[in-house]
């Protein structure tokens, strides 16, 4: 397992590089690497773009390789918000397709609240 921390734009870039290294070291094939990196960008940008709190954002990303899948869990301290709720029927503003992309590229996506924090977990089958 690998844990990444993001609290600023510069740390976002560092975490992206760490995720790329982790995917390569775990021998995830290139197409699935791209899918997971796209999903990382969509979810982290959603967290940063939709936060309305004045408290500094803290995002923790837990990367796990399982027997037949890879999961990324994003935990953040922003306002509690379930992005999966009522997302299906909303009209898409320009640039508002992030969640559609995540849902289509991943095999499973779950939202839960843990210790009063948002936790969004995506899973991609790799076999």
């Amino acid at each position, binding site marked *: 397992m690998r844990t990444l921390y993001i609290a600023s734009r510069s740390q976002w870039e560092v975490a992206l590089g760490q995720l790329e290294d982790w995917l390569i070291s775990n021998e995830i094939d290139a*197409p699935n690497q791209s*899918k997971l990196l796209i999903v990382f*960008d969509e979810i982290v*940008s959603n967290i940063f773009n939709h936060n309305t709190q004045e408290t500094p954002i803290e995002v923790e990303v837990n990367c796990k390789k399982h027997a037949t899948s890879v999961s990324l869990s994003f935990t953040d301290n922003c306002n509690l918000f379930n992005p999966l709720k009522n997302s299906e029927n909303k009209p898409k503003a320009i640039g508002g397709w*992030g969640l559609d992309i995540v849902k289509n*590229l991943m095999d499973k996506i779950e939202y839960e609240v843990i210790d009063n924090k948002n936790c969004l977990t995506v899973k991609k089958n790799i076999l």
Partner: protein
Amino acid sequence: MEITHTFIDGTDILMPKGRIDTLTSPELETALQPLLDKDAVQITLDFKDVSYISSAGLRILVKTAQNAKAKNGEVALTNLNESVAQVLEITGFQSFFKIL
């Protein structure tokens, strides 16, 4: 992000290199802006060296295509890899661009 710009037969050809995501898409937008200020807008984006694109990058492409169309111009995409093509398909924008 490294972006190579050439001008051939009346078409501006941009060849970005690497990923097009939230962190890099502003650079692509900056590179595209002066091309949209021209009287005749013909832009081809060569994705040969692009590994993937996220919705942040796609937003720039869509805005560029809309602005080009408003001036009777066109934005074409070429050399799309599987990942880029899939994102275009998911969002329904594959028909929005001329794919070479």
